[in-house]
């Protein structure tokens, strides 16, 4: 029987610790730079690593090209979400959002440009920020997470303008409805809520788990991922991945997948979705037919 080849390098304390860290690392968020050459990834240890996409994807890519160009400790807790504006990288994790300049980020010892903490109600535990959403029309940032509220922050002034309450449990994901400036949020309480940004009120609520077709009680009721195409919405998580027609708030298609979905996006007419526990990215048509799967 052939055994796995062990490394020739003797592992001292440092190497063992690093290996264990890597084994238990989870990458929660990623963001591409505005120039498209770099990819930022945030992990559960609060580190952000910047990879050079152009180097890694080029024809002369070596092993070293696939390693990060720079890694730095961004947050004390996990970096749950990241977005990029045209000049900044915004990262958020345990209760704070920090901004980094893309132009400076490659230099060692980069410091955050600013950090902001939305006004939280409780002080016992700092709630996490699970989702960041950019609203380009308003030039503002929406944060949502552990305190069950959506906070809007003006990117120029840094002031927190709104706090949208309604969720009974922490919010997992956000999506922006372009045409009417509405924000969709899905949370642990199993509901997808739509918010009007101008009036700062909740306009619609869809409690997914209450619909029998898509609910899967053994998985729970939490909504892990959201994507919207103005008229349509796809959401999944505990309940099955379902395509909803927003106006009528009815589920139209239920995608046949067992595992709870973590990510979903619309792409042209297709729905791409990935589950955290499998190695596949499934591609579906709107009608629920699985066209093909991209697999690791």
């Amino acid at each position, binding site marked *: 029987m052939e055994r796995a080849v062990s490394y020739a390098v003797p592992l001292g*304390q440092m*190497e*063992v610790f690093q290996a264990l860290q890597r084994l238990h690392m989870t990458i929660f968020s990623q963001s591409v730079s505005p120039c498209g050459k770099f990819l930022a990834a945030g992990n559960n240890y609060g580190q952000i690593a910047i990879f050079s996409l152009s180097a890694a994807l080029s024809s002369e890519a070596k092993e070293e090209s696939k390693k990060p160009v720079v890694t730095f400790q961004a947050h004390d*807790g*996990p970096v749950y979400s990241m977005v990029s504006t045209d000049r900044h990288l915004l990262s958020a994790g345990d209760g704070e959002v920090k901004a980094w300049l893309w132009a400076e980020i490659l230099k060692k010892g980069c410091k955050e440009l600013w950090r902001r903490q939305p006004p939280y109600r409780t002080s016992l535990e700092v709630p996490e920020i699970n989702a960041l959403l950019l609203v380009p029309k308003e030039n503002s940032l929406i944060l949502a997470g552990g305190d069950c509220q959506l906070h809007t922050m003006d990117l120029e002034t840094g002031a927190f303008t709104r706090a949208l309450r309604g969720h009974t449990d922490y919010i997992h994901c956000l999506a922006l409805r372009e045409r009417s400036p509405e924000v969709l949020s899905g949370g642990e309480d199993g509901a997808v809520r739509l918010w009007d940004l101008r009036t700062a009120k909740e306009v619609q609520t869809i409690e997914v788990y209450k619909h029998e077709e898509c609910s899967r009680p053994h998985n729970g009721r939490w909504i892990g991922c959201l994507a919207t195409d103005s008229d349509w919405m796809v959401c999944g998580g505990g309940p099955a991945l379902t395509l909803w027609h927003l106006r009528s708030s009815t589920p139209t298609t239920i995608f046949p997948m067992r595992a709870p979905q973590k990510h979903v996006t619309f792409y042209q007419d297709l729905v791409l979705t990935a589950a955290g526990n499998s190695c596949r990215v499934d591609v579906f048509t709107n009608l629920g037919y699985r066209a093909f799967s991209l697999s690791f």
Partner: protein
Amino acid sequence: MSSESSKKRKPKVIRSDGAPAEGKRNRSDTEQEGKYYSEEAEVDLRDPGRDYELYKYTCQELQRLMAEIQDLKSRGGKDVAVEIEDRRIQSCVHFMTLKKLNRLAHIRLKKGRDQTHEAKQKVDAYHLQLQNLLYEVMHLQKEITKCLEFKSKHEEIDLVSLEEFYKEAPPDISKAEVTMGDPHQQTLARLDWELEQRKRLAEKYRECLSNKEKILKEIEVKKEYLSSLQPRLNSIMQASLPVQEYLFMPFDQAHKQYETARHLPPPLYVLFVQATAYGQACAHMKSSQPPRQDKTLSVAIEGSVDEAKALFKPPEDSQDDESDSDAEEEQTTKRRRPTLGVQLDDKRKEMLKRHPLSVMLDLKCKDDSVLHLTFYYLMNLNIMTVKAKVTTATELITPISAGDLLSPDSVLSCLYPGDHGKKTPNPANQYQFDKVGILTLRDYVLDLGHPYLWVQKLGGLHFPKEQPQHTVIADHSLSASHMETTMKLLKTRVQSRLALHKQFASLEHGIVPVTSDCQCLFPAKVVSRLVKWVTIAHEDYLELHFTKDIVEAGLAEDTNLYYMALVERGTAKLQAAVVLNPGYSSIPPIFQLCLNWKGEKTNSNDDNIRAMESEVNVCYKELCGPRPSHQLLTNQLQRLCVLLDVYLETDSHDDSVEGPKEFPQEKMCLRLFRGPSRMKPFKYNHPQGFFSHR
């Protein structure tokens, strides 16, 4: 005709005999001239030329007469006779003349001869004289040359130079006024001075000799005195031994050790010196205790010094030995032909031969347990090996799972990362091994000891990989630089192993021994229990389905120790596969979990299991406890129990299923889920006692 002539002679000549007449003749010459007719005297008077003419005339006359006679005879007649007669008488006269002349001639001849003879005799005499004289001359000349060549001994003497002579010699010898002018006198004077000097020096020499004799005698006396001193000193030394022991200054012992140390091979010698120095330094540092009592490190040399000396016998002896051994070998070969394998075996044994002396180090730890290290030197391979043994103050009952913890084979494995001690550190040995068919040293380590890299460094041997050197020499500075670290590592190793040993005994009984100062890491009530703790083999660990990540990351080597723990609560069973690195506790044990409850959950299908592993593997530094962090493993196990409690109690209730939750939530948690991965609250906060998320 002589008788005729004598007859015809007138009686003037008195002649009795020929000889006496001649003798008398000389006298008669002198007596009477007139009376005696001396023909000898006549000879002197007559002229030889006239005689010759007379002779010629006579001869002619005779011829004429004869011829006339002849003629007359031939003519014949009567008157002839008278004529003939006449002529006959004439011829007779002529004959007489001729006879006289003949006599005269003879006498002249005789005289002449006599004269010649005399002269010749004279000449001979002169000649002889001349020769004698010449001979004498030659002789004298030789003598002269000899004399001239004669080198007087005095010239061989190196006399002092003239200036010195005039300077040093006293005036009565040098006599300057005389000697200056006369070289002979000068030389004489110098010789005198020389003699004088020599006499003085001879005097001095005699004195010195006698001095020397005296001094030699004194030396003898003193030597005897000293040699009588030696046994007394020895007895004093013997007597002082108890005092030394009392004062903890075993000089004698140390001295003996140093004596034997001289026979150590260089690497062992370096080790011995450095270890002794380190031991003494450590003892010095602990000032609170009585001096040199705290013997945390004691060094001793074991083995046979005679054998060590025998290794370096002078050639003659070794030749004798060789011939003896040859004879022996011949005998053995006659008795039984050794097979190739046996010969190879002998060659292998020869190659792996150890030096008869070995250095023993005893490291004493705080709890009175001792690590005994015996260092050997393999002469042909130029490496050192070590055998280890751990003894404790009290007898240890070895729990089943702790079998390998303190075994001599593995207790020192990987003291430094990767130093497993199964391969020879000297790259040159490979070629030697190939010759005798040794594959690797691993097969022999049980017998010979382990050739760890730190052992070579302590002996000052350095084998650089990049440039293999022909001869590696033991280096003191290398040994010194590694001594302290290695000793500390050895002590921590022994102590951590002993701690584990004790802990395992407890773990096998299902009790996780948490010390009081670590209690704060855990909540007061822990319901999950450890039910099983066994050791598993490396191969078994590799076969487990939930350990693939660790194996792929290269963290599961064959130098590690593997265990399986089982934690239970109710119907839930949590299997934990533990990898224990020899470098525990600086390198943490690694846990891989598999939970059997409502299905099988591992880190590949349940993020919370992964989070639990992370709590134990990555966040181990919180669990180290007070230094020297021997509590790491037990704390990790205890945390595992707590994590299982949290996991089971915070399980989200499935509304569709009927019945109460199996595990009611007793733990205080702020939130049950957090973050996109919906983690459970695994972090325990002390002293508030609630669980939160990281």
